[in-house]
């Protein structure tokens, strides 16, 4: 197996989960409803736990300990897509991002349940099952608010259009894409993007929202190769503050 290709794939997935998990946690105590506060906090915990399990797989492949990897890298060493590092904005943007991202994640881990790397296949079966709660949550709110009032529809529509170039950045192809596919590690970003587009269109089709024309959207790439927006480093500084002060602290 091409270990470099596998490591690259695991890093971008783990970094996506960690960074969006951190963004989700910023809703703790701030949610528009108590129930949404709990939902985003729970999804944060799931995502950070899942990132830890992926960093653990990386550790077994010879990379550093999960805490070291999570807390000591700078923005340029992270492989998450720019989409997940964007600030939460208002609730409508967080909800749209949650919907677009988790729809892709659920399909990604379903595809990875057939990967040739067995420890990842086993973990993916588990994560896929948990993500059903995330997509259930996203779909329920998108369908309700996407067909509710002029304000809710208008806000979601605006966020959907703003999010879409970044959302397509999730599928930035890897320089090792060929190896990843030919070795049966993953069917590839193109297959994932096609399936994602179908699922997104199917849910949006049940609302009064309008999908922008895919052909007119320029994907925002760069995150997978460490070229990030100005938003990532401040997030990392906050996330790693305690660790940097006292690397042996336990909490």
């Amino acid at each position, binding site marked *: 197996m091409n270990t470099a290709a596998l490591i690259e794939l695991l890093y971008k997935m783990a970094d996506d989960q960690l960074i969006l998990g951190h963004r989700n946690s910023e809703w703790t105590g701030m949610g528009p409803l108590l129930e949404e506060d709990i939902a985003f906090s729970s999804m944060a*915990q799931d995502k950070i*736990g899942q990132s830890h399990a992926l960093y653990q797989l990386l550790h077994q492949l010879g990379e550093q300990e999960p805490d070291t990897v999570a807390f000591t890298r700078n923005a340029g060493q992270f492989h998450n897509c720019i989409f997940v590092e964007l600030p939460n904005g208002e609730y409508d943007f967080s909800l749209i991002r949650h919907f677009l991202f988790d729809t892709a994640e659920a399909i990604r881990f379903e595809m990875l349940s057939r990967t040739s790397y067995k420890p990842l296949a086993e973990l993916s079966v588990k994560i896929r099952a948990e993500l059903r709660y995330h997509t*259930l949550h996203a779909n329920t709110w998108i369908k309700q608010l996407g067909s509710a009032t002029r304000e809710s529809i208008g806000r979601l529509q605006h966020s959907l259009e703003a999010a879409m170039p970044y959302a397509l950045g999730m599928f930035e192809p890897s320089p090792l894409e060929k190896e990843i596919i030919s070795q049966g590690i993953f069917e590839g970003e193109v297959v994932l993007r096609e399936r994602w587009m179908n699922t997104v269109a199917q849910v949006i089709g049940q609302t009064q929202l309008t999908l922008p024309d895919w052909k007119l959207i320029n994907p925002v790439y760069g995150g997978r190769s460490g070229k990030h927006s100005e938003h990532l480093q401040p997030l990392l500084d906050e996330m790693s503050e305690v660790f940097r002060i006292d690397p042996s602290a336990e909490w």
Partner: protein
Amino acid sequence: MQLTEEKILEWLHDVKDPEIPVLSLVDLGIITDININAESVHIEMTPTFVGCPALDMMKNDVIARLTKAGVNHVDVEVNFKKAWTSERISENGRKALKKFGLAPPPAGKVLLEDLDILEHVACPRCDGTNTQLKNPFGPTLCRSIHYCLDCKEAFEQFKPV
């Protein structure tokens, strides 16, 4: 001392879920394999949810219990070879959950594409199904929040996965 799987299981029945102190790790179904090699024991465990923060505590409790029973060498490996599903909770475990006030997940395999199972969960107080799902997320990763329209009280369910 002749170690047997039965003996180990009996000891592990004393180790409870730290958040649900009436439910043993064995009944919860997170002990997935026991390997005995003369005086040493190798236990495999898997979390209910990948991000479960209680896992390390449970791992240490397993080691402490077996050490107390006189096992010289215990090691615990966490993996996903037999991923946890709610089907792994034993009948005893389901009874313990209900007694504790938590609705058990439905018995048998859960087809999660069909999330209707989350609506009309039987209330652990009155057993009625005149209930509503309030939130698929709850106070811990493994619980959802429901409301019984007859008791006019909220309750939690141990989530099916």
